[in-house]
């Protein structure tokens, strides 16, 4: 038993059954399909055994938002228990075709992105096509799907002329699938900011971080992705070059989700985890060392900001508020909603779409009540969900920072 297994097992005994997690769980609040974190986590775990069939399928309704971990006063690692229980269920019962598709965001992205993107986007905005997809695959017809890009971020990066010259400190950018196939503008903003700060940006070959596979319970496939990424990133980490990412769920996966859920604790995996930063975490660290440029243009705006679950799971506070708080004139109103509901691929599923919309309602109300035509969020799937539900445009905070630096 490795130390993670041990800490998971031991954390069961830290549960004092106070139900704070269930009181805070945004999913249990809107549906009784999910009895709550305490029941499917520490309680049901006592009835799970590797050699016995899974006793309870309701754990599949856990969205993995980790609000339970965040509020637990005794430190029980409920979300990890649930993710592992789901993987055991998938290993036992198999995985529906729908989940196999949506869990492979790299593959889906590759197929959608490119010259064919307009056609793909048109098809996916065509109601009868979405109805058909719902009938055949079980992806809800109203679920928010991103617009594919006509070019990949990697393609853009290779073809561009770097604006920096001479010896500069290096930084590796982990762009993730969404930036590469759907939102190259996020990556462009990140590169522009990092180069403005004097870094040389390196983009090594990389695959999907594996989070959609982890959250859909396909651990063996996720492990392959993670091992590939670790192999690619390790030489840079060993050379002291930090890895930064704009997708807060990708960086969380590299830091913690993949190593912990998959039980990978080798030196290489640990080194990559310890060398990975959410981009605003990285920028805040620069600022704390007095190394962040603050030659900002003033942006006279008041914008709603939602710190997504996957960012909160880093347990690093609110680096976006800390950094964007330096921009003159800019005021961010932090959402206090627990979750947007989408939880990666959860809200795409036909049987879970309405739950996701109900979970996200307080956030949608908050964004709409702001009266602004733009909202900020660090996570791509949350942005798509917020925009889909409210009609309000959403952006990654790095895009606002690039604007403040005047580099876009």
């Amino acid at each position, binding site marked *: 038993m490795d130390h993670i297994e041990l800490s998971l097992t031991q954390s069961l005994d830290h549960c004092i059954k*106070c*139900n*704070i997690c*269930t*009181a*805070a769980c945004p999913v*249990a*609040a809107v549906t*009784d399909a999910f*009895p*709550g974190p305490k*029941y499917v986590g520490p309680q049901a775990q006592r009835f799970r055994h590797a050699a016995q069939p899974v006793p309870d399928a309701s754990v599949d309704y856990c969205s993995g938002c980790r609000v339970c*971990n*965040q*509020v*637990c*006063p*005794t*430190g029980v690692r409920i979300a990890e228990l649930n993710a592992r229980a789901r993987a055991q269920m998938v290993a036992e019962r198999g995985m529906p075709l729908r989940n196999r598709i949506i869990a492979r965001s790299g593959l889906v992205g590759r197929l959608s992105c490119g010259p064919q993107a307009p056609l793909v986007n048109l098809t996916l905005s065509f109601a009868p096509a979405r109805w058909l997809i719902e009938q055949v695959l079980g992806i809800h017809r109203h679920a928010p799907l991103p617009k594919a890009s006509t070019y990949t971020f990697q393609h853009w990066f290779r073809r561009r002329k770097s604006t920096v010259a001479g010896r500069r400190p290096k930084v590796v950018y982990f762009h993730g699938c969404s930036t590469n196939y759907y939102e190259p503008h996020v990556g462009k903003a990140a590169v522009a900011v990092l180069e403005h700060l004097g870094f040389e940006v390196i983009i090594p070959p990389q695959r999907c971080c594996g989070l959609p596979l982890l959250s859909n319970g396909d651990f063996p496939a996720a492990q392959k992705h993670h091992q590939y990424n670790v192999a690619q990133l390790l030489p840079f980490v060993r050379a002291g070059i930090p890895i930064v990412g704009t997708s807060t769920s990708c960086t*969380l996966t590299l*830091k*913690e989700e993949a190593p912990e859920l998959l039980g990978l604790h080798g030196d290489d995996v640990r080194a990559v*985890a*310890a060398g*990975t930063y959410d981009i605003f975490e990285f920028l805040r660290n620069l600022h*704390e060392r007095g190394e962040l440029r603050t030659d900002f243009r003033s942006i006279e705006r008041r914008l709603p900001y939602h710190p997504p679950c996957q960012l*909160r*799971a*880093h*347990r*690093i*506070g*609110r680096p976006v*508020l800390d950094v964007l708080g330096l921009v003159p004139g800019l005021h961010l109103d932090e959402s*206090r909603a627990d979750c947007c509901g989408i939880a990666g691929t959860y809200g795409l599923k036909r049987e879970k779409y309405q739950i996701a919309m109900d979970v996200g309602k307080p956030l949608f109300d908050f964004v709409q009540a702001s009266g602004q035509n733009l909202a900020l969020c660090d996570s791509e799937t949350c942005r798509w969900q917020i925009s889909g539900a409210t009609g309000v445009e959403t952006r990654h905070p790095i895009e606002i920072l690039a604007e403040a630096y005047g580099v876009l």
Partner: protein
Amino acid sequence: MYDTIVIGAGLAGLMAAIGRAERGEKVMVLAKGHGTTHWTTGCLDLFAEVDDPIAGIIQLTDQRPHHPYALVGLTMIEQGVARFRAICEAAGYPMVGNFNRNLLLPTALGALRPTAFAPATMINGDARQLRDGRPTLIASFGVLRDFFPPLIAANLRAQGIAAEAALLALPPTGRQHDFSPVILARMFDQPDFRARVGEQLAAFVRKGGYARIGMPAILGLKHPTEVVRDLQNRAGALIFEIPTLPTSVAGMRLYHILENALLSLGGRMQLGGFVQRGEPLKETLVAVFSEAAAREQRHTARRWVLATGGILGGGIRATPEGHLRETALDLPLQTPDSRSGWFAARFLAEQGHPVFQSGVRVDRSLRPLDASGRLVYENVMVAGSALAGFDPVREGCLEGVAIATGWAAGQQ
């Protein structure tokens, strides 16, 4: 860099943070999770051993000069409680009671529990009113676990209160199972749901002539005052709430009210940040490190308030070897010398068990001291149940000490 970082999100920590934010400081509350507010009754126990809490406290501070109440003094106790009540009042959730006579409110077992201040939603359950001879109905839903009206009513009758019990039919909700106090409280926030419940209560009142109805403390999470007023109008009887087992809706309301007050003052909250160690520079605490993904997060501040709770709240933990440890900063603890001194011989010993008086010894400014009385950190203050020299549950002063010392830490 913050002016003040408060470690712990219970009553003590939130009151300290509000105090400092009101002075214009940049403040953050850093906590492992939700505070023990969610485990407690949502009332304010000042001192439960005597009828007159303030007289009891005055006597106590004479006899026990190291009791937290004695360290902060009567003025700070009264000011802290007054500020706390003003915050609740401004949130539309008045805390009713007084400093000189404890209320006696029914528990979920039908025992009578002394407390100094209670939310207005509970106040009609004061035993002095219940003993006026007019009948009281205790009512709940069968689906709510750990709250049994017949048991409560029987125990109240044994104490001379004319109480009867009824189970209400749950209005249709679209939900088949898992009716926790919080789920039910959210339903009561909805007018249609409570109208249906109100109809049933009115029918019971018509039949049984009840003057008062006691219900579990699930009457609304966001708008409890309005819910109770509405139910009283519909039922034609006074309504009072009885605290439930955790998760306590009444406790959550206090947490939300104080959290809102802090955030509206520009303070920040970071939950899920378990503080594991401090970084000292001689007698100054320079930084603390909280647990985070892949590596610790370092936090810096000029001043710190440690309000992590005692043995109950998790601020003090026992190691397998039988030592007690303060979990965040590893401060020296005042505690029985060895494990054999932790407990009295009898489980229900009147003086309680020595281990529950364990905590951090502090000076009059609430700054931590070591065993020889030397100052450990000049810029750290300790508040609430992490303090040594009192037994919060047995003495019935958990919230009182939290608010008084938290407020004091926010002022000095």
